[in-house]
């Protein structure tokens, strides 16, 4: 018998980034008993890495902006396979959520008349991103944290969930372990919210930290919930490429929003060479017009550097593949050139992009006010995830909710920068509210001790493997494989190879060997995370095989164009009754006529 501690809550929130904390605050406000599972220490979640801003049509900087424009921008960015109801709720409710943060103490940068300042970002028609320099995510998570701790929620820091528990088809709780002591914990709750973030650790080059092993995606899948859009993984166009240790670390899109340009080794502004038809009307004709746009000229159109991330990332890959890249296999991102345009350019750059200035100075020895940065695409954000009801965020399992990156629908085939922070707030809040409501109407289910014992036994089995592999080595090999075969540019033969190799990886991962004891043993944590990474890798690969077209972040060289039939489908991933992963296409729901009209009017 393996022992465990037990906790009882009305609502259990798994994840303590922006979505998890926002959900926990909302659920606590209803009077529910709320437990929050935090994989790291509180306030360290990946939300702190968000730099550029929160997208919300506050129309403080340009009064032509409103929720309708934000809605159509989001749909266009997602290539129209988004859940339109989520896109509508998101655009309508984001401004209120930003003001709510301000009322909890967040201090955004200001306009001259004392309102919240907004900046330009890729795919957003008007300046829409509320921000704090380039550390918006830190401001947001700290505000939520400092507000949340006074709401009565209980936070379990350094705790990881390894399985959800069900009772006759609905959710009953979750089972996990405490990193510090290595003990197991059973959480009873009639409502569980997944807010676990992304899957970036399945790839070698990523902006994500070790935590992002797709836990929520894998937990939901294992419990029988449906996942959608798993083929849509966003590669952020600008990650650091040098030195090797910092490869993948994010360079904010804010650099381009403030006037930064992309250059190849021929000093050519290559983004002007390839502008997609969907965006031709909205893109500048000349560098001069692009510059005027970044400086707030309302008649100018956006420079091609601010096209959507999927497109910019692919253009960068093409430059590198065709031999026009920089020495460390990237391209140049230059903000220093603006000294031709303004007197105190270095001061401006340091004020607007202090984090980037510091990051390059410290880690690469580069002064971005004087010289260009070297950047390349990095695995950044999972558009796919748990399929949820747009209004309540409940998954296909009663009592199981999901919000933020691990939920899917809002972003479709490609997310616009700034829409994730607003996503967290809008849908974190909704998930918290509806989970608390569900909990008030449903008693906690029963948990099965035999099942729990077998979960615990599985988890400690890695200490008994006589000659298994090193878990870090298997993880690195998996990351290399996914990077090479299911990355930014995809093709059937490579994806099939990935699928084949994942069968081997699943067996290798079950047999990794861990030494020592369970107290803060990173090798053991890695062995457990690996199981989740393999499930999400399989889901990405299968979904990518089945979508035989290119759309948004999913690019197939064997099917380089969008296909109208595929463009009306989402792909759903589920676990079969025989335990196998299955993909199935489901038709998109028809867009409500008034929203369809908006889309058509703003095309």
């Amino acid at each position, binding site marked *: 018998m393996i022992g465990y501690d037990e906790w009882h809550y009305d609502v259990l929130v798994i994840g303590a980034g922006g979505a998890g904390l926002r959900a926990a605050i909302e659920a606590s406000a209803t009077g529910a008993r709320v437990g929050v599972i935090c994989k790291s220490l509180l306030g*360290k979640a990946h939300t702190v890495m968000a730099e550029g801003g929160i997208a919300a049509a506050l129309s403080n900087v340009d009064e032509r902006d409103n929720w309708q424009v934000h809605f159509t921008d989001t749909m266009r960015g997602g290539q129209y396979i988004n859940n339109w109801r989520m896109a509508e709720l998101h655009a309508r409710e984001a401004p209120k959520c930003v003001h709510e943060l*301000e*009322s909890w103490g967040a201090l955004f940068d200001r306009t001259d008349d*004392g309102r919240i300042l907004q900046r330009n970002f890729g795919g957003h028609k008007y300046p829409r991103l509320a921000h704090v320099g380039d550390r918006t995510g830190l401001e947001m998570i700290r505000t939520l944290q400092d507000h949340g*701790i006074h709401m009565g929620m209980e936070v379990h820091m350094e705790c990881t969930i390894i399985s959800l528990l069900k009772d006759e088809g609905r959710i009953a709780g979750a089972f996990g372990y405490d990193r510090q002591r290595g003990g197991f914990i059973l959480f009873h709750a009639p409502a569980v919210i997944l807010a676990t973030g992304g899957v970036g650790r399945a790839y070698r080059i990523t902006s994500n*930290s070790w935590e992002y092993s797709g836990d929520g995606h894998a937990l939901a899948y294992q419990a029988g919930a449906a996942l959608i859009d798993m083929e849509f993984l966003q590669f952020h166009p600008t990650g650091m490429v040098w030195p*090797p240790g910092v490869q993948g670390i994010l360079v904010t899109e804010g650099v381009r929003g403030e006037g930064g340009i992309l250059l190849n080794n021929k000093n050519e502004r290559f983004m002007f060479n390839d502008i997609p038809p969907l965006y031709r009307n909205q893109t500048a004709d000349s560098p001069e017009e692009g510059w005027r746009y970044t400086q707030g000229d309302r008649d100018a159109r956006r420079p091609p550097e601010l096209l959507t991330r999927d497109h910019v990332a692919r253009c960068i890959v093409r430059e590198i593949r065709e031999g026009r890249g920089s020495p460390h296999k990237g391209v140049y991102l230059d903000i220093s050139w603006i000294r031709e345009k303004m007197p105190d350019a270095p001061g401006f750059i340091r004020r607007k992009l202090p984090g980037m200035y510091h990051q390059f100075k410290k880690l690469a020895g580069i002064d971005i006010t004087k010289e260009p940065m070297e950047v390349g695409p990095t695995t950044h954000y999972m558009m796919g995830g748990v399929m949820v009801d747009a209004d309540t965020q409940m998954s296909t399992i009663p009592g199981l909710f999901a919000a933020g990156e691990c939920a899917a629908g809002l972003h479709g085939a490609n997310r616009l920068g700034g829409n994730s922070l607003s996503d967290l707030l809008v849908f974190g809040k909704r998930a918290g509210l509806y989970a608390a409501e569900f909990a008030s109407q449903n008693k906690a289910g029963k948990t099965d001790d035999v099942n729990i014992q077998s979960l615990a036994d599985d988890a400690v089995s890695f200490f008994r493997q006589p000659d298994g592999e090193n878990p870090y080595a298997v993880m690195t090999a998996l990351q290399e494989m996914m990077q090479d075969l299911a990355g930014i540019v995809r093709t059937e033969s490579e994806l099939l190879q990935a699928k084949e190799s994942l069968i081997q990886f699943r067996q290798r991962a079950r047999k990794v060997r861990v030494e020592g004891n369970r107290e803060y043993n990173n090798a053991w944590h890695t062995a457990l995370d690996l199981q989740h990474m393999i499930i999400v890798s399989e889901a990405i690969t299968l979904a990518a095989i089945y979508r035989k077209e290119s759309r948004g972040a999913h690019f197939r060289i064997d099917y380089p164009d969008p296909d109208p039939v595929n463009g009306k489908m989402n792909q759903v991933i589920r676990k079969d009754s025989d335990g196998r992963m299955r993909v199935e296409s489901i038709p998109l729901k028809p867009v409500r006529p008034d929203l369809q009209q908006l889309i058509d009017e703003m095309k």
Partner: protein
Amino acid sequence: MIMNAEFQIWRGGKDSAGRFESYTIETTEGMVVLDAVHHIQSSQAPDLAVRWNCKAGKCGSCSAEINGTPKLMCMTRLSELPLGQPVTIAPLKAFPLIRDLVTDVSWNFRVKKKIPPFRPRKPDAPDGTWRIAQEDIDRVQEFRKCIECFLCQDVCHVLRDHQQFESFSGPRYMVYLAALEMHPLDVEDRIPLIKKENGIGLCNITKCCTAVCPEEIRITDNAIIPLKERVVDRFYDPIRKLFNLFK
């Protein structure tokens, strides 16, 4: 440029006698200390306990004492260190050890919870929000850069050497209190608490906290001293004292 370097890393749990273990690895250009620790972990010491997250100096998880100085491992490049001699990496000394490089920093979270939260004045702009001038928040934005790495807490003599955890909240919370007190919308009065519960008088402004802050927040000059002044104005102003006597 590849060269070998030796790292001496603290190994041991809270109940066992700890010791520095030596590991030698090949280092490459641009490596930071956290890269070296990860390299050692994956090749030589799989169960080495280390806390980290963003690897970009933004989350404040990977705090440790490198050659005796509190630093973020992710932001310390090997090229800054004398690699001719072993590099020592030890856990934060001010806090109880959990294992290897990981310490129990939960005290910090308990201190924060006791500080009265932000309480705004009523919205006074026509649209139901507030108008705030940028120049009124510049100083607060400096404090809000804090990534809660607790390096300042680790280096503070009052905590590190004198273990006054009951009577002094440490530099991190002076910065937090300053951010609240100087927030243009906040109406809570924390000055009596800052004097008593948070023990600001115990700081003797040696500025060690400022020296280790990875966000370069001028903790002593911009947060602690102004708060000390506010406490003095409230409690030690001789004219006010006289005035109070006759009130």
